Every structure is written in C-alpha cells, then in structure tokens.
C-alpha cells in the first residue's frame, strides 16, 4: 500500500531533483494538502495540480487537473477534474452548511482526497509529477493505467 507519507516524500524528491525552485518566480514549493474528507471546499480547487484518491491512509489513484479553463475560470483544473469523480449529496449537510459529497463508481470506497496546487503558469509540472508518482508507486497499490503512446 502507498501511504500519504510516501507521496509526500516522493514529491519532495521530485521537486528537489528536477526543478530549481528559484526559477519558479520565487514561489515556495507546493505541498500536498491535508486530507479532505469529502465535506466542504476542496483544497486548491482553483488551481492546476494533482490529486490523490485515498482509502483511509492509502493512496488508490493519482490524477491531475490542468485544463485551460475558460472565461474567469482560467487554469481552474483541480475543481473541474475532481468533480467528475463525485457528486454533491443534497440529502446531507455538515456543520456550517457545508456540502457533503459522495464518490461515484469505480471509486465508491474512497474516503478522502489530498491535492497539490501549482502556481499559475506551472500547471505542466503537475503532469510531470503525476507521471513520476505513477512510475514510483504503480506496483504498490495504485490503480492508474497510463497509455504507452
């Protein structure tokens, strides 16, 4: 099983090994968010980046959201991409009227998400990170399958 900690360590290695962060307009290196338990607002929803679907403490799937967006929602990849995996359960409410979401097939066993958002203009790094993490952890429980084309 791949843990959140495994992902954090591998991500730090990716950023340290592959990118001179001083070149990223002085932005601090991005970090994975705390676990989002399918309630309220998704961390980094307004950014391009990567997300991981969790089953308890284990990572099941990693994806990326780097769409161009449109109009006032330029580069809002993560919110739109993760929305395809879940739906708003209008029959439930959490504290402070927060929305509650339920995962859709084939991820109904997912209990939460973590996300990592990249500064504007660096969304392409999310795709490299996603591929790097898939290569690192494919044999350790991830269900990702990437096209070899």
């Amino acid at each position, binding site marked *: 099983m791949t843990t959140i900690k495994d992902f954090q360590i591998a991500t730090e290695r990716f950023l340290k090994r592959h990118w001179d962060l001083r070149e990223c307009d002085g932005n601090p290196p991005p970090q994975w968010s705390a676990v989002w338990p399918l309630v309220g607002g998704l961390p980094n929803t307004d950014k391009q980046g990567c997300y991981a679907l969790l089953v308890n403490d284990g990572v099941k799937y990693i994806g990326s959201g780097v769409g161009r967006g449109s109009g006032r929602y330029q580069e809002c990849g993560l919110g739109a991409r993760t929305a395809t995996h879940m739906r708003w359960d209008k029959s439930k409410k959490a504290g402070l009227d927060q929305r509650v979401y339920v995962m859709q097939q084939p991820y109904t066993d997912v209990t939460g998400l973590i996300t990592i958002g990249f500064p504007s203009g660096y969304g*392409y790094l999310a795709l490299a990170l996603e591929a790097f993490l898939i*290569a690192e952890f494919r044999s350790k429980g991830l269900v990702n399958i990437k096209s070899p084309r």
Partner: protein
Amino acid sequence: MSKERKKLSMDEVETAFRNEFQPIQDRFLVQRIPLNLAPSDKTAGVNAPGVYVYWNSQHGVIVVGKSQANSRSRALEHIRDHARGGTLDMATLRGDANAYLLLFNIKAAKDWHWLLGLEAFLETHIDPLIRAGRIG
C-alpha cells in the same frame, strides 16, 4: 473577439523550451528534421520517446504531441491518418520543403515523466494551429 494567433519561428519554439526547462534541458536531445526526410531518418536519438512539434513556414507551429515510445514514428502518423485542424489536412504537408519536425527526445528512460510536462507546456505556450482536445 478571439485573440490573434502568434506564429512562432522554430528558434522561438526552441527558446521557449530552453528558457523554461533550463535546469533539465540537457536531459533532452533537440533536433530539427525536414519533414520530407523524416520517414527515412536514422539519426541516433531520433527514434526515442519524446515530444514533437510540427512546423511550417505558412502556419508556424501546427501541432504538438508526444510519444512514450518513438516520437518520430508517432508524429508521422498524423500525415498517414490525414489529421485535420480547421481547413488543414496534415497529409498535404507531405513533400512540403518548408515543413519540419522538431523533436525533444529524452536521453534516458528514467526521465519519461517529463514528456507529459513538456507536451503540456508547449501546448499552452507556443500556440499550435491544431490544439489538443485536453491537456494531460
């Protein structure tokens, strides 16, 4: 009103790559191949995983793509398959003396994860005539 598309030169495309990927640019072999020579090109490093850019003098950057197996071979499939964008049928580029393939091939398999990143960077920064349906 739609933004007017800027037609970049091959030098400008390569400069965009080198500026953004400066810390890791040595991991890539960058090559320009005249399109009419590409089918028979046996140069070392041409048949490797990489990102390709179609360019000609009329349209500038035409399309960006990648292959995790063989960028030259994958790129030529656009011509074979009559890939289209707007009014352009890419099969008409066959024999175009002013058309080139720019290949950004990785030198080592361990760097394959950069292919997706570089493809996305070029797709969003060099304004191809034929845009990808989705990025990533």
